């Protein structure tokens, strides 16, 4: 499967990064390496024996400063399937509620000698701030509107399994691009792998100068859908909006909702993706979301566990003194 341009060096040179704070900074072959590593976990997860003792004795802390269900669960399952002790720190029970700063929390987590820390935080850059303060690998599980690298990797894995290659693949990302870390990581990842990425949103939900990231900007969803091989829908993040960005969800659906009729504008075998949680009936209709042949939404969730296993495995290899990595 690996095309020549994505061969990678042996050992730690294949992925020389200490943590995973974003897709920015990753070379295409490093992304490819993580996707390849994830494949083995896809296979294992589909079998009856879903656990190895690779990370036995290691402690992984999931520090989620922002609510999450699927990402937290996905990281927890990934860690446990690799045999690690996984501890979830939810914001509601943390000292943050008592006024502790993020740096204090980072230092506390560091003192507990975790082997990897997974962070989700509502502020862009918060994960980098913690990564700079702790000794162990840090994985970004979403920071503000900045990046959500494992989501982009799992999306890429989902696409790769269905489409085999990225070169020239037309991917339309539609929705609240402004507030979406998923969009940013996916743009960086897919454009890096050679896809032709289109972004579509009303102007108020489109970040300035995003075309500088190598995408084509659309405001007309129908135009953006024409010839698309992959249609990635994003949720309207009403909780991040201060002021009125759109007249109403009903009007938004009128212009940007993915209906079965609209999907006809895309390629006949176009994939439909959504990082969830979905606003059914707003950005995506149920008969599209649940479309047996087209919707990859549950596959994305499945790939999420495999990708996170791959990331945890790769980033702890140095700590495990694995040959070629220590």
């Amino acid at each position, binding site marked *: 499967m690996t095309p020549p341009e994505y061969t990678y060096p042996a050992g730690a040179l294949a992925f020389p990064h200490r943590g995973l704070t974003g897709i920015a900074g990753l070379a295409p072959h490093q992304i490819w390496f993580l996707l390849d590593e994830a494949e083995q976990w896809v296979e294992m997860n589909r079998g009856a024996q879903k656990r190895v003792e690779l990370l036995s004795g290691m402690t992984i802390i999931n520090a989620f400063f922002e609510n999450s269900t699927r990402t937290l669960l996905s990281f927890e399952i990934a860690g446990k399937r690799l045999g690690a002790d996984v501890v979830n720190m939810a914001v509601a029970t943390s000292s943050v509620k008592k006024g502790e700063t993020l740096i204090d929390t980072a230092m506390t987590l560091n003192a507990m000698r975790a082997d990897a820390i997974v962070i989700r935080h509502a502020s*862009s850059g918060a994960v980098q701030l913690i990564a700079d303060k702790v000794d162990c690998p840090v994985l970004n599980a979403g920071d*503000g*509107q900045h990046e959500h690298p494992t989501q982009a990797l799992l999306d890429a894995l989902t696409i790769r399994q269905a489409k085999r290659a990225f070169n020239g693949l037309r991917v339309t990302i539609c929705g609240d691009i402004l507030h979406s*870390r998923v969009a*940013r990581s996916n743009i960086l990842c897919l454009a890096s792998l050679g896809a032709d990425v289109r972004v579509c949103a009303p102007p108020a939900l489109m970040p300035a100068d995003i075309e500088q990231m190598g995408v084509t900007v659309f405001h007309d969803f129908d135009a953006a859908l024409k010839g698309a091989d992959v249609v990635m829908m994003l949720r309207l993040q009403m909780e991040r909006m201060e002021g009125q960005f759109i007249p109403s969800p009903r009007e938004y659906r009128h212009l940007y909702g993915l209906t079965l009729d609209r999907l006809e504008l895309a390629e006949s075998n176009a994939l439909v993706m959504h990082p969830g949680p979905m606003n059914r009936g707003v950005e995506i209709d149920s008969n599209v979301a649940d479309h047996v042949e087209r919707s990859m939404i549950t596959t994305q969730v499945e790939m999420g566990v495999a990708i996170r296993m791959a990331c945890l495995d790769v980033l702890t290899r140095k700590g495990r003194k694995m040959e070629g990595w220590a």
Partner: protein
Amino acid sequence: MSLHAPLTVTNGRVLLADGSIQTGAVRCEGGFITAIGADVAPQDGDTVHDARGQIVAPGLVDIGVFAIDKPAFHFGGITRAALMPDQNPPLDVSARVRFAAQSGKPDFWVHPLAAATQGLEGKALAEIAMMRDAGARAVCTGRRWIGDSGTMLRLLQYTGMLGMVVIAHAEDAGIVGNAVATAGEMATRLGLPSAPAQAEALAIARDIALADMANAAIHFRNVTTAAGLELVRAAKARGARVTAGVSPAYFMLSDLSIGAFRTFTHLSPALRCEADRKAVVGAIADGTIDVIASGHDPRGPEDKRLPFSDSAPGMAGAETLLPLTMSLVRDGVIDMARAFELIAANPAKLLGVNAGSLAVGAEADIAVLDPERPWIVNSDKMAAAAGNTPFDRQPVQGRVLALFKGGVAVRMKKIGG
């Protein structure tokens, strides 16, 4: 009368009020300059300071600082600063203004800026005349823009009547919202809440129109965009009572500097694009900008060691005001005389104080400086209450060797130190 002995600064290259530089001495008595010239000599009983051929310049006057931070001001050659009303509690009543006006004396003078509105909330006018009589030298909207145009008009009418200038923050708050960066590629890549730079021009356009209606004087504390500067330029050309200021960050840095989420570059207004930075340099050169101010706002780690959008805006700027302005002189953008207009004479004029230039009869606020002396900004070793400077580790040139407030030495640097 001062109890201190008269002072004569000898052997200096004296920067005179007309912009010329003359080798000679400056003699001060009773806190005022009494003689300047090549033939001026110390008299019996004078304290003598040998300037050793260095520049003898007026003490800097800094408009719009957020904290009284004497060690930093003295390091930077600043003898007077206009204090922003954004204090806790705000400077919106005469008692607080009176206290603030006394807070730096005798070796540093604070000129409080009266809050334009009660609690700086932009709604009801504060007791401006009473604050003026308590020592306020100008009126200020604080960190925020007054969104209600009716309130702003009435403010300008009132200050026009009182003969006070309004110092305004120029950013349309409706557009800015919770933004911490200027909309553009960098903010988009970092996923930071951002607002278009045009928020500044919109605010300036409205406020100039209102100031015209009220025939009042308005000073924009920070004009940082090409569009905003063009509006100021046009207004000045037709004789409007408009002046503009800027802080060194906006002619030294662009939004590329926020790239690593470094909160020391979190400023208000947010850093602009490179084209705007160049426009600021051009506006300093052509006279559109009247004042360069430090915007000194020392912030400790509890305000700055946070994710970018959660951190407080502001930088410690007092120590770098002079050397960064000197960089414009070295680059040939302006000459030495114009530099001191920007950092001393013009701000003093705006505040209506008898300082900011070396002339007989002016208050004896004097800085002896070596404009070429190289040093490296080090946030860990700054005199300021906090070292939150975006210029950390940057080599600069220009250092104050001695500083006198009212003819009394407040800072001496060992030669060679």
